[in-house]
Protein backbone atom coordinates (compact mmCIF):
# COMPACT_ATOMS: atom_id res chain seq x y z
CA UNK A 1 0.00 0.00 0.00
CA UNK A 2 1.39 3.40 -0.90
CA UNK A 3 1.59 6.19 1.66
CA UNK A 4 -1.04 8.93 1.50
CA UNK A 5 -0.04 12.02 -0.50
CA UNK A 6 -1.38 14.29 2.25
CA UNK A 7 -1.05 13.09 5.81
CA UNK A 8 -1.54 14.93 9.10
CA UNK A 9 -1.16 13.27 12.46
CA UNK A 10 -2.48 14.78 15.70
CA UNK A 11 -1.87 18.38 14.62
CA UNK A 12 -2.39 21.03 17.25
CA UNK A 13 -2.12 24.77 16.82
CA UNK A 14 -3.03 27.58 19.17
CA UNK A 15 -3.46 31.26 18.23
CA UNK A 16 -3.49 33.39 21.38
CA UNK A 17 -6.53 32.12 23.26
CA UNK A 18 -8.02 30.09 20.42
CA UNK A 19 -7.21 26.41 20.12
CA UNK A 20 -7.52 26.32 16.33
CA UNK A 21 -6.42 22.69 15.97
CA UNK A 22 -6.84 20.26 18.86
CA UNK A 23 -5.36 17.08 17.40
CA UNK A 24 -6.35 16.79 13.75
CA UNK A 25 -5.70 13.68 11.68
CA UNK A 26 -6.19 13.89 7.93
CA UNK A 27 -5.09 11.87 4.95
CA UNK A 28 -5.70 11.84 1.24
CA UNK A 29 -4.63 9.18 -1.23
CA UNK A 30 -3.16 10.01 -4.60
CA UNK A 31 -5.67 11.27 -7.13
CA UNK A 32 -8.51 11.66 -4.64
CA UNK A 33 -10.29 14.67 -3.20
CA UNK A 34 -10.46 14.95 0.56
CA UNK A 35 -13.28 17.25 1.62
CA UNK A 36 -12.68 18.96 4.94
CA UNK A 37 -16.10 20.00 6.06
CA UNK A 38 -16.95 22.23 8.97
CA UNK A 39 -18.45 25.52 10.08
CA UNK A 40 -16.59 28.82 10.39
CA UNK A 41 -13.99 28.61 13.12
CA UNK A 42 -13.74 24.83 13.00
CA UNK A 43 -10.03 24.98 12.15
CA UNK A 44 -10.19 24.23 8.42
CA UNK A 45 -8.08 27.21 7.31
CA UNK A 46 -5.52 26.59 10.03
CA UNK A 47 -5.15 22.99 8.91
CA UNK A 48 -4.56 24.22 5.34
CA UNK A 49 -2.02 26.81 6.54
CA UNK A 50 -0.06 24.11 8.36
CA UNK A 51 -0.17 21.72 5.40
CA UNK A 52 0.94 24.46 2.98
CA UNK A 53 3.94 25.50 5.17
CA UNK A 54 2.44 28.88 6.11
CA UNK A 55 2.03 28.00 9.78
CA UNK A 56 3.96 25.69 12.05
CA UNK A 57 2.02 23.23 14.17
CA UNK A 58 2.52 23.36 17.94
CA UNK A 59 2.64 19.58 17.98
CA UNK A 60 1.91 16.67 15.71
CA UNK A 61 3.36 16.26 12.25
CA UNK A 62 2.29 16.48 8.65
CA UNK A 63 3.74 15.21 5.41
CA UNK A 64 2.85 16.31 1.90
CA UNK A 65 4.14 14.21 -1.00
CA UNK A 66 6.24 12.44 1.61
CA UNK A 67 8.00 15.60 2.81
CA UNK A 68 7.67 17.03 6.28
CA UNK A 69 5.91 20.41 6.16
CA UNK A 70 8.20 21.90 8.82
CA UNK A 71 11.64 20.48 8.14
CA UNK A 72 11.30 20.04 4.36
CA UNK A 73 9.09 23.03 3.63
CA UNK A 74 10.93 23.97 0.42
CA UNK A 75 10.35 20.49 -1.04
CA UNK A 76 6.67 20.72 -0.15
CA UNK A 77 6.35 24.15 -1.79
CA UNK A 78 7.70 22.78 -5.09
CA UNK A 79 4.84 20.31 -5.27
CA UNK A 80 1.76 22.19 -4.12
CA UNK A 81 -0.66 24.76 -5.42
CA UNK A 82 -2.66 26.79 -2.93
CA UNK A 83 -5.85 28.78 -3.30
CA UNK A 84 -6.45 30.54 -0.03
CA UNK A 85 -9.73 31.85 1.26
CA UNK A 86 -8.71 35.49 0.75
CA UNK A 87 -7.71 36.10 -2.83
CA UNK A 88 -3.93 36.09 -3.00
CA UNK A 89 -3.35 37.80 -6.30
CA UNK A 90 -1.99 41.29 -6.83
CA UNK A 91 -5.00 43.49 -7.56
CA UNK A 92 -2.87 46.24 -9.13
CA UNK A 93 -1.59 43.86 -11.80
CA UNK A 94 -3.51 42.43 -14.74
CA UNK A 95 -4.57 38.79 -14.65
CA UNK A 96 -1.84 37.94 -17.14
CA UNK A 97 0.85 39.83 -15.23
CA UNK A 98 -0.10 37.96 -12.06
CA UNK A 99 0.23 34.57 -13.70
CA UNK A 100 3.51 35.41 -15.45
CA UNK A 101 4.96 36.75 -12.19
CA UNK A 102 3.96 33.62 -10.28
CA UNK A 103 5.39 31.46 -13.06
CA UNK A 104 8.70 33.27 -12.93
CA UNK A 105 8.84 33.08 -9.14
CA UNK A 106 8.18 29.35 -9.51
CA UNK A 107 11.33 29.00 -11.63
CA UNK A 108 9.75 28.92 -15.08
CA UNK A 109 11.64 30.73 -17.82
CA UNK A 110 9.92 33.97 -18.82
CA UNK A 111 8.76 32.63 -22.20
CA UNK A 112 7.40 29.47 -20.55
CA UNK A 113 5.69 31.53 -17.86
CA UNK A 114 4.02 33.64 -20.56
CA UNK A 115 2.86 30.61 -22.53
CA UNK A 116 1.54 28.95 -19.38
CA UNK A 117 -0.28 32.14 -18.39
CA UNK A 118 -1.97 32.25 -21.82
CA UNK A 119 -3.05 28.59 -21.53
CA UNK A 120 -4.51 29.08 -18.07
CA UNK A 121 -6.31 32.30 -19.02
CA UNK A 122 -8.14 30.56 -21.83
CA UNK A 123 -8.84 27.46 -19.74
CA UNK A 124 -10.42 29.61 -17.02
CA UNK A 125 -12.37 31.79 -19.42
CA UNK A 126 -10.38 34.90 -18.57
CA UNK A 127 -9.08 35.75 -22.03
CA UNK A 128 -11.17 38.90 -22.40
CA UNK A 129 -10.14 40.14 -18.96
CA UNK A 130 -6.53 38.98 -19.23
CA UNK A 131 -5.05 42.41 -19.74
CA UNK A 132 -7.33 44.28 -17.36
CA UNK A 133 -6.32 45.14 -13.82
CA UNK A 134 -7.59 42.57 -11.29
CA UNK A 135 -9.10 45.32 -9.12
CA UNK A 136 -11.99 45.46 -11.63
CA UNK A 137 -12.64 41.69 -11.67
CA UNK A 138 -15.84 40.18 -10.28
CA UNK A 139 -15.65 37.81 -7.30
CA UNK A 140 -15.95 34.77 -9.55
CA UNK A 141 -13.23 36.02 -11.91
CA UNK A 142 -10.87 36.62 -8.99
CA UNK A 143 -11.48 33.12 -7.67
CA UNK A 144 -10.80 31.65 -11.09
CA UNK A 145 -7.61 33.68 -11.41
CA UNK A 146 -6.59 32.58 -7.93
CA UNK A 147 -7.12 28.96 -8.87
CA UNK A 148 -5.25 29.49 -12.14
CA UNK A 149 -2.40 31.03 -10.13
CA UNK A 150 -2.14 27.90 -8.03
CA UNK A 151 -1.96 25.75 -11.17
CA UNK A 152 0.89 27.61 -12.89
CA UNK A 153 3.45 24.93 -12.04
CA UNK A 154 1.08 22.03 -12.73
CA UNK A 155 1.36 20.90 -9.12
CA UNK A 156 0.38 17.30 -8.33
CA UNK A 157 -1.20 18.42 -5.04
CA UNK A 158 -3.73 21.21 -4.60
CA UNK A 159 -5.11 22.88 -1.51
CA UNK A 160 -8.35 24.77 -2.05
CA UNK A 161 -9.58 26.67 0.99
CA UNK A 162 -13.29 27.39 0.54
CA UNK A 163 -12.91 28.00 -3.20
CA UNK A 164 -16.58 28.68 -3.79
CA UNK A 165 -17.52 30.73 -0.71
CA UNK A 166 -19.37 33.83 -1.85
CA UNK A 167 -19.83 32.65 -5.44
CA UNK A 168 -23.16 32.65 -7.23
CA UNK A 169 -24.57 29.21 -8.19
CA UNK A 170 -23.38 29.43 -11.81
CA UNK A 171 -19.83 30.32 -10.84
CA UNK A 172 -19.87 27.60 -8.24
CA UNK A 173 -20.97 24.97 -10.72
CA UNK A 174 -18.23 26.15 -13.09
CA UNK A 175 -15.67 25.82 -10.28
CA UNK A 176 -16.86 22.29 -9.56
CA UNK A 177 -16.36 21.36 -13.19
CA UNK A 178 -12.81 22.70 -13.07
CA UNK A 179 -12.07 20.71 -9.92
CA UNK A 180 -13.48 17.54 -11.46
CA UNK A 181 -11.28 18.12 -14.48
CA UNK A 182 -8.23 18.39 -12.24
CA UNK A 183 -9.14 15.14 -10.49
CA UNK A 184 -9.46 13.43 -13.87
CA UNK A 185 -5.91 14.60 -14.52
CA UNK A 186 -4.68 12.72 -11.44
CA UNK A 187 -4.24 15.67 -9.08
CA UNK A 188 -4.69 15.09 -5.35
CA UNK A 189 -6.91 17.74 -3.79
CA UNK A 190 -7.68 18.86 -0.27
CA UNK A 191 -10.74 21.09 -0.36
CA UNK A 192 -12.30 22.81 2.61
CA UNK A 193 -15.90 23.85 2.52
CA UNK A 194 -18.84 24.83 4.65
CA UNK A 195 -21.17 23.51 1.99
CA UNK A 196 -22.34 19.97 2.53
CA UNK A 197 -23.54 19.59 -1.03
CA UNK A 198 -20.11 20.63 -2.28
CA UNK A 199 -18.36 17.93 -0.27
CA UNK A 200 -21.02 15.44 -1.32
CA UNK A 201 -20.58 16.34 -4.99
CA UNK A 202 -16.79 16.33 -5.15
CA UNK A 203 -15.21 14.37 -2.32
CA UNK A 204 -14.02 10.78 -2.34
CA UNK A 205 -13.64 11.05 1.41
CA UNK A 206 -14.88 13.62 3.88
CA UNK A 207 -13.43 14.63 7.22
CA UNK A 208 -15.94 16.52 9.32
CA UNK A 209 -14.13 18.97 11.56
CA UNK A 210 -15.51 20.92 14.49
CA UNK A 211 -13.69 22.83 17.25
CA UNK A 212 -10.30 21.77 15.91
CA UNK A 213 -11.06 18.05 15.87
CA UNK A 214 -12.08 15.55 13.22
CA UNK A 215 -15.39 14.25 14.50
CA UNK A 216 -16.19 11.96 11.60
CA UNK A 217 -14.31 10.58 8.64
CA UNK A 218 -15.40 8.44 5.73
CA UNK A 219 -16.90 8.34 2.28
CA UNK A 220 -20.00 10.47 1.77
CA UNK A 221 -22.08 7.27 1.75
CA UNK A 222 -20.55 6.03 5.00
CA UNK A 223 -21.24 9.31 6.73
CA UNK A 224 -24.81 9.34 5.56
CA UNK A 225 -25.28 5.77 6.75
CA UNK A 226 -24.46 6.91 10.28
CA UNK A 227 -27.74 8.75 10.56
CA UNK A 228 -29.94 5.82 9.56
CA UNK A 229 -30.75 4.50 6.11
CA UNK A 230 -33.69 6.79 5.57
CA UNK A 231 -35.00 9.96 7.08
CA UNK A 232 -38.58 11.00 7.55
CA UNK A 233 -39.49 14.65 7.97
CA UNK A 234 -42.95 15.25 9.34
CA UNK A 235 -44.90 18.49 9.64
CA UNK A 236 -47.77 18.28 12.14
CA UNK A 237 -50.97 20.32 11.89
CA UNK A 238 -50.38 21.47 15.48
CA UNK A 239 -47.55 21.03 18.03
CA UNK A 240 -47.99 17.73 19.87
CA UNK A 241 -45.87 16.64 22.84
CA UNK A 242 -46.69 12.96 22.42
CA UNK A 243 -45.71 12.77 18.77
CA UNK A 244 -42.10 11.63 19.41
CA UNK A 245 -43.30 8.80 21.68
CA UNK A 246 -45.89 7.70 19.15
CA UNK A 247 -43.11 7.28 16.56
CA UNK A 248 -40.59 5.61 18.88
CA UNK A 249 -41.15 2.24 17.23
CA UNK A 250 -39.71 3.46 13.91
CA UNK A 251 -36.68 5.53 14.87
CA UNK A 252 -33.06 4.49 15.25
CA UNK A 253 -31.92 7.72 16.96
CA UNK A 254 -33.64 10.43 19.01
CA UNK A 255 -35.80 12.59 16.71
CA UNK A 256 -34.90 16.21 16.02
CA UNK A 257 -37.84 18.43 16.94
CA UNK A 258 -38.24 21.90 15.45
CA UNK A 259 -40.63 24.80 14.94
CA UNK A 260 -41.99 24.67 18.49
CA UNK A 261 -42.88 20.98 18.26
CA UNK A 262 -44.54 21.11 14.83
CA UNK A 263 -41.75 19.44 12.84
CA UNK A 264 -39.93 16.20 13.50
CA UNK A 265 -36.95 14.74 11.67
CA UNK A 266 -36.45 11.02 12.21
CA UNK A 267 -33.71 8.55 11.41
CA UNK A 268 -35.40 5.32 10.39
CA UNK A 269 -34.68 1.97 8.82
CA UNK A 270 -36.16 0.99 5.50
CA UNK A 271 -39.67 -0.33 5.83
CA UNK A 272 -42.49 -0.84 3.33
CA UNK A 273 -45.23 1.76 3.48
CA UNK A 274 -43.17 3.92 5.81
CA UNK A 275 -44.91 7.20 5.06
CA UNK A 276 -48.43 5.95 5.57
CA UNK A 277 -47.50 4.04 8.76
CA UNK A 278 -46.06 7.24 10.25
CA UNK A 279 -49.31 9.06 9.45
CA UNK A 280 -51.34 6.20 10.99
CA UNK A 281 -49.26 6.15 14.18
CA UNK A 282 -49.77 9.87 14.64
CA UNK A 283 -53.47 9.50 13.83
CA UNK A 284 -53.91 7.07 16.75
CA UNK A 285 -52.93 9.86 19.16
CA UNK A 286 -55.15 12.31 17.30
CA UNK A 287 -52.47 14.37 15.57
CA UNK A 288 -52.98 15.41 11.96
CA UNK A 289 -50.10 15.47 9.44
CA UNK A 290 -49.73 18.36 6.99
CA UNK A 291 -46.67 17.04 5.23
CA UNK A 292 -44.47 13.96 5.28
CA UNK A 293 -41.32 13.29 3.26
CA UNK A 294 -39.13 10.21 3.19
CA UNK A 295 -35.64 10.73 1.83
CA UNK A 296 -32.07 9.51 1.99
CA UNK A 297 -30.13 11.53 4.59
CA UNK A 298 -28.25 14.58 3.39
CA UNK A 299 -24.94 15.73 4.81
CA UNK A 300 -26.88 18.43 6.65
CA UNK A 301 -28.53 15.66 8.62
CA UNK A 302 -25.15 14.06 9.20
CA UNK A 303 -23.67 17.29 10.49
CA UNK A 304 -26.55 17.92 12.82
CA UNK A 305 -26.38 14.37 14.04
CA UNK A 306 -22.64 14.64 14.76
CA UNK A 307 -22.37 18.10 16.25
CA UNK A 308 -25.77 19.01 17.57
CA UNK A 309 -25.73 22.21 15.56
CA UNK A 310 -26.37 22.94 11.92
CA UNK A 311 -23.42 23.38 9.56
CA UNK A 312 -24.24 26.99 8.84
CA UNK A 313 -24.14 27.92 12.53
CA UNK A 314 -20.74 28.92 13.86
CA UNK A 315 -19.13 26.78 16.51
CA UNK A 316 -17.92 28.51 19.66
CA UNK A 317 -14.37 29.12 18.35
CA UNK A 318 -13.38 32.06 16.17
CA UNK A 319 -12.10 31.38 12.68
CA UNK A 320 -8.36 31.53 13.26
CA UNK A 321 -6.28 33.05 10.50
Amino acid at each position, binding site marked *: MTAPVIEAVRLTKRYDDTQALAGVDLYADKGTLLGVLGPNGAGKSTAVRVLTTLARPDSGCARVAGFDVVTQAAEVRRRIGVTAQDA*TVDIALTGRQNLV*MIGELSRLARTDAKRRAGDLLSRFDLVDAADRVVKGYSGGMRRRLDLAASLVTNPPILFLDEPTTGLDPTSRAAMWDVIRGLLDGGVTVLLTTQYLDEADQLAHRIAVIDHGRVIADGTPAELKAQTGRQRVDVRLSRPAAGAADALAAFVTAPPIIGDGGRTLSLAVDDAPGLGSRVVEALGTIGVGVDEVTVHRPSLDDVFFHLTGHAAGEAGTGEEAA
Partner: protein
Amino acid sequence: MTAVDVLESAAALETDRAPSASRLAEWIRDAWVLTRRNLVHVRREPAQLSDVTVQPILFTLLFTQLFGAAMVLPGGGSYIDFAVGGLLIMNLVTSAPMGTAVGLGSDISTGIIDRFRTLAMKRSAIVAGRTFSDLLASIMCAFFVAAAGLVVGWRPDTGAMGLLAGFGVALLFGYSLSWFGACIGLAVRGPESAQSIGLIILFPLAFVSNAFVPTNNLPTWLGTIAAWNPVSAAGAAVRELWGNPNPSSTISAWPMQHPVAAALIWSVVILAICAVTATWLFKRRTTE
Protein backbone atom coordinates in the same frame (compact mmCIF):
# COMPACT_ATOMS: atom_id res chain seq x y z
CA MET B 1 29.93 38.31 4.70
CA THR B 2 28.02 40.18 2.03
CA ALA B 3 24.51 41.55 2.35
CA VAL B 4 23.27 38.76 0.14
CA ASP B 5 24.87 36.16 2.42
CA VAL B 6 23.05 37.68 5.35
CA LEU B 7 19.80 37.62 3.44
CA GLU B 8 20.39 34.10 2.37
CA SER B 9 20.86 32.93 5.93
CA ALA B 10 17.08 33.02 6.22
CA ALA B 11 16.65 30.81 3.18
CA ALA B 12 19.51 28.54 4.18
CA LEU B 13 17.32 26.94 6.82
CA GLU B 14 15.17 25.61 4.05
CA THR B 15 16.20 22.40 2.39
CA ASP B 16 17.88 23.49 -0.78
CA ARG B 17 20.58 21.44 -2.36
CA ALA B 18 21.34 23.77 -5.25
CA PRO B 19 24.95 24.99 -5.33
CA SER B 20 25.47 28.45 -3.88
CA ALA B 21 26.19 30.13 -7.24
CA SER B 22 22.85 29.05 -8.69
CA ARG B 23 21.12 29.93 -5.42
CA LEU B 24 22.46 33.46 -5.77
CA ALA B 25 21.30 33.57 -9.39
CA GLU B 26 17.83 32.41 -8.33
CA TRP B 27 17.73 35.00 -5.60
CA ILE B 28 18.67 37.80 -7.98
CA ARG B 29 16.06 36.63 -10.47
CA ASP B 30 13.31 36.49 -7.83
CA ALA B 31 14.24 39.96 -6.59
CA TRP B 32 14.20 41.27 -10.16
CA VAL B 33 10.78 39.74 -10.91
CA LEU B 34 9.42 41.50 -7.83
CA THR B 35 11.19 44.73 -8.77
CA ARG B 36 9.38 44.67 -12.10
CA ARG B 37 6.11 44.02 -10.30
CA ASN B 38 6.66 47.11 -8.15
CA LEU B 39 7.40 49.15 -11.27
CA VAL B 40 4.06 48.03 -12.74
CA HIS B 41 2.41 49.38 -9.58
CA VAL B 42 4.12 52.72 -10.19
CA ARG B 43 2.96 52.81 -13.79
CA ARG B 44 -0.58 52.07 -12.58
CA GLU B 45 -0.49 54.97 -10.16
CA PRO B 46 2.17 57.48 -11.22
CA ALA B 47 1.22 59.85 -8.37
CA GLN B 48 3.24 57.48 -6.15
CA LEU B 49 6.27 59.00 -7.80
CA SER B 50 5.58 62.59 -6.72
CA ASP B 51 8.17 62.35 -3.94
CA VAL B 52 10.89 61.63 -6.49
CA THR B 53 9.67 64.00 -9.23
CA VAL B 54 7.60 66.95 -8.07
CA GLN B 55 9.08 67.13 -4.58
CA PRO B 56 12.76 67.34 -5.63
CA ILE B 57 12.00 70.03 -8.21
CA LEU B 58 9.86 72.00 -5.78
CA PHE B 59 12.31 71.73 -2.89
CA THR B 60 15.28 72.65 -5.06
CA LEU B 61 13.55 75.75 -6.41
CA LEU B 62 12.13 76.81 -3.02
CA PHE B 63 15.24 76.31 -0.92
CA THR B 64 17.70 77.85 -3.33
CA GLN B 65 15.52 80.90 -3.89
CA LEU B 66 14.33 81.39 -0.27
CA PHE B 67 17.50 80.61 1.66
CA GLY B 68 19.83 81.71 -1.11
CA ALA B 69 18.76 85.31 -0.73
CA ALA B 70 19.69 85.40 2.98
CA MET B 71 22.53 82.92 3.36
CA VAL B 72 26.21 83.86 3.49
CA LEU B 73 28.43 80.78 3.52
CA PRO B 74 31.37 80.66 5.94
CA GLY B 75 34.41 80.64 3.64
CA GLY B 76 32.41 82.15 0.78
CA GLY B 77 30.91 80.63 -2.37
CA SER B 78 27.47 80.46 -3.95
CA TYR B 79 24.60 79.15 -1.81
CA ILE B 80 23.06 77.48 -4.84
CA ASP B 81 26.29 75.55 -5.51
CA PHE B 82 26.31 74.60 -1.82
CA ALA B 83 22.64 73.68 -1.63
CA VAL B 84 22.17 71.20 -4.48
CA GLY B 85 24.36 68.47 -2.91
CA GLY B 86 22.47 68.83 0.36
CA LEU B 87 19.10 68.87 -1.39
CA LEU B 88 20.00 65.68 -3.22
CA ILE B 89 20.72 63.94 0.09
CA MET B 90 17.69 65.45 1.79
CA ASN B 91 15.33 64.31 -0.99
CA LEU B 92 16.78 60.81 -0.94
CA VAL B 93 16.54 60.62 2.86
CA THR B 94 12.85 61.46 2.77
CA SER B 95 11.88 59.40 -0.29
CA ALA B 96 13.92 56.17 -0.46
CA PRO B 97 13.13 54.75 3.00
CA MET B 98 9.53 55.91 2.83
CA GLY B 99 8.92 54.11 -0.45
CA THR B 100 10.27 50.87 1.00
CA ALA B 101 8.45 51.25 4.32
CA VAL B 102 5.06 51.95 2.75
CA GLY B 103 5.41 49.42 -0.08
CA LEU B 104 6.48 46.61 2.20
CA GLY B 105 3.96 47.64 4.83
CA SER B 106 1.13 47.25 2.32
CA ASP B 107 2.42 43.97 0.87
CA ILE B 108 2.77 42.37 4.27
CA SER B 109 -0.78 43.29 5.25
CA THR B 110 -2.41 41.70 2.17
CA GLY B 111 -2.88 38.12 1.03
CA ILE B 112 -0.23 38.41 -1.69
CA ILE B 113 2.47 37.69 0.88
CA ASP B 114 0.88 34.28 1.57
CA ARG B 115 0.95 33.52 -2.13
CA PHE B 116 4.66 34.35 -2.31
CA ARG B 117 5.31 32.23 0.75
CA THR B 118 3.78 29.11 -0.81
CA LEU B 119 5.96 29.41 -3.93
CA ALA B 120 9.36 27.82 -4.35
CA MET B 121 10.96 31.29 -4.39
CA LYS B 122 13.51 32.91 -2.09
CA ARG B 123 11.53 34.72 0.56
CA SER B 124 14.24 37.26 1.29
CA ALA B 125 13.90 38.44 -2.32
CA ILE B 126 10.55 39.98 -1.36
CA VAL B 127 12.28 42.66 0.72
CA ALA B 128 15.21 43.04 -1.65
CA GLY B 129 12.94 43.45 -4.68
CA ARG B 130 11.24 46.34 -2.92
CA THR B 131 14.56 48.08 -2.21
CA PHE B 132 15.66 47.63 -5.83
CA SER B 133 12.59 49.39 -7.20
CA ASP B 134 13.15 52.16 -4.67
CA LEU B 135 16.74 52.48 -5.89
CA LEU B 136 15.39 53.08 -9.39
CA ALA B 137 13.08 55.73 -7.95
CA SER B 138 16.08 57.30 -6.19
CA ILE B 139 17.92 57.54 -9.52
CA MET B 140 14.93 59.42 -10.89
CA CYS B 141 14.96 61.66 -7.82
CA ALA B 142 18.67 62.44 -8.32
CA PHE B 143 18.01 63.33 -11.94
CA PHE B 144 15.29 65.84 -11.04
CA VAL B 145 17.33 67.47 -8.26
CA ALA B 146 20.26 67.91 -10.65
CA ALA B 147 18.05 69.17 -13.49
CA ALA B 148 16.31 71.72 -11.26
CA GLY B 149 19.70 72.69 -9.81
CA LEU B 150 21.13 73.32 -13.28
CA VAL B 151 18.15 75.52 -14.12
CA VAL B 152 18.71 77.76 -11.07
CA GLY B 153 22.44 78.01 -11.71
CA TRP B 154 24.13 75.09 -9.91
CA ARG B 155 27.51 74.26 -11.48
CA PRO B 156 29.65 71.35 -10.31
CA ASP B 157 33.38 72.07 -10.46
CA THR B 158 34.76 68.62 -11.19
CA GLY B 159 35.21 66.07 -13.96
CA ALA B 160 32.74 63.41 -15.06
CA MET B 161 34.23 60.92 -12.60
CA GLY B 162 33.79 63.28 -9.65
CA LEU B 163 30.25 64.05 -10.73
CA LEU B 164 29.34 60.37 -11.02
CA ALA B 165 31.11 59.53 -7.78
CA GLY B 166 28.98 62.18 -6.02
CA PHE B 167 25.78 60.64 -7.37
CA GLY B 168 27.08 57.17 -6.52
CA VAL B 169 27.78 58.04 -2.89
CA ALA B 170 24.37 59.70 -2.56
CA LEU B 171 22.52 56.75 -4.10
CA LEU B 172 24.37 54.21 -1.97
CA PHE B 173 23.46 56.22 1.10
CA GLY B 174 19.82 56.41 0.00
CA TYR B 175 19.82 52.68 -0.72
CA SER B 176 21.09 51.86 2.76
CA LEU B 177 18.24 53.95 4.17
CA SER B 178 15.78 51.90 2.08
CA TRP B 179 16.69 48.96 4.29
CA PHE B 180 16.06 51.15 7.31
CA GLY B 181 12.63 51.86 5.78
CA ALA B 182 12.16 48.11 5.29
CA CYS B 183 12.65 47.65 9.05
CA ILE B 184 9.98 50.27 9.75
CA GLY B 185 7.54 48.78 7.25
CA LEU B 186 7.98 45.31 8.75
CA ALA B 187 7.86 46.46 12.37
CA VAL B 188 4.64 48.46 12.30
CA ARG B 189 1.08 47.34 11.69
CA GLY B 190 0.29 48.80 8.29
CA PRO B 191 1.35 51.22 5.55
CA GLU B 192 -0.22 54.26 7.25
CA SER B 193 1.74 53.73 10.47
CA ALA B 194 4.88 53.10 8.41
CA GLN B 195 4.39 56.47 6.75
CA SER B 196 3.92 58.48 9.93
CA ILE B 197 6.57 56.74 12.01
CA GLY B 198 9.05 56.97 9.14
CA LEU B 199 8.56 60.72 8.81
CA ILE B 200 8.93 61.28 12.57
CA ILE B 201 12.35 59.61 12.47
CA LEU B 202 13.60 60.89 9.12
CA PHE B 203 12.70 64.56 9.25
CA PRO B 204 14.81 65.45 12.30
CA LEU B 205 17.60 63.39 10.76
CA ALA B 206 17.39 65.39 7.55
CA PHE B 207 17.16 68.77 9.28
CA VAL B 208 19.82 68.46 12.03
CA SER B 209 22.49 68.25 9.36
CA ASN B 210 24.36 70.38 6.86
CA ALA B 211 21.80 69.59 4.14
CA PHE B 212 20.40 73.15 3.94
CA VAL B 213 22.56 75.29 6.17
CA PRO B 214 26.23 75.33 7.18
CA THR B 215 26.51 73.87 10.69
CA ASN B 216 29.72 75.77 11.61
CA ASN B 217 28.01 78.21 13.98
CA LEU B 218 25.62 75.84 15.74
CA PRO B 219 25.70 75.53 19.57
CA THR B 220 28.31 72.92 20.51
CA TRP B 221 25.90 70.12 21.41
CA LEU B 222 23.82 70.55 18.26
CA GLY B 223 26.98 70.98 16.18
CA THR B 224 28.30 67.66 17.49
CA ILE B 225 25.07 65.87 16.62
CA ALA B 226 25.10 67.43 13.15
CA ALA B 227 28.74 66.52 12.56
CA TRP B 228 28.14 62.84 13.39
CA ASN B 229 24.76 62.68 11.64
CA PRO B 230 25.17 60.32 8.64
CA VAL B 231 23.19 62.83 6.56
CA SER B 232 25.89 65.48 7.10
CA ALA B 233 28.63 63.08 6.04
CA ALA B 234 26.71 62.25 2.85
CA GLY B 235 26.04 65.94 2.13
CA ALA B 236 29.67 66.94 2.68
CA ALA B 237 30.88 63.99 0.60
CA VAL B 238 28.74 64.98 -2.37
CA ARG B 239 29.89 68.62 -2.15
CA GLU B 240 33.52 67.59 -1.95
CA LEU B 241 33.21 65.19 -4.91
CA TRP B 242 31.40 67.84 -6.98
CA GLY B 243 33.89 70.59 -6.11
CA ASN B 244 31.11 72.69 -4.58
CA PRO B 245 31.48 74.85 -1.44
CA ASN B 246 31.77 72.64 1.64
CA PRO B 247 31.97 74.76 4.81
CA SER B 248 31.92 71.59 6.93
CA SER B 249 35.55 70.97 5.93
CA THR B 250 36.64 73.35 8.70
CA ILE B 251 34.81 71.35 11.38
CA SER B 252 37.27 69.15 13.24
CA ALA B 253 35.01 66.09 13.81
CA TRP B 254 36.41 63.06 11.94
CA PRO B 255 33.42 62.55 9.58
CA MET B 256 33.63 66.19 8.44
CA GLN B 257 37.37 65.84 7.78
CA HIS B 258 36.88 62.60 5.82
CA PRO B 259 33.34 62.98 4.44
CA VAL B 260 33.59 60.47 1.55
CA ALA B 261 35.02 57.73 3.76
CA ALA B 262 32.51 58.60 6.48
CA ALA B 263 29.56 58.49 4.05
CA LEU B 264 30.67 55.11 2.70
CA ILE B 265 31.21 53.67 6.19
CA TRP B 266 27.85 54.96 7.40
CA SER B 267 26.13 53.46 4.32
CA VAL B 268 27.72 50.04 4.77
CA VAL B 269 27.03 49.97 8.52
CA ILE B 270 23.40 51.03 8.09
CA LEU B 271 22.96 48.55 5.24
CA ALA B 272 24.43 45.65 7.22
CA ILE B 273 22.52 46.31 10.43
CA CYS B 274 19.23 47.04 8.70
CA ALA B 275 19.46 44.08 6.30
CA VAL B 276 19.95 41.69 9.20
CA THR B 277 17.20 43.36 11.20
CA ALA B 278 14.78 43.45 8.26
CA THR B 279 15.40 39.77 7.51
CA TRP B 280 14.73 38.92 11.15
CA LEU B 281 11.60 41.09 11.24
CA PHE B 282 10.34 39.53 8.03
CA LYS B 283 10.75 36.04 9.44
CA ARG B 284 9.08 37.04 12.69
CA ARG B 285 6.23 38.70 10.83
CA THR B 286 5.61 35.70 8.61
CA THR B 287 6.05 32.92 11.17
CA GLU B 288 2.90 31.49 12.66
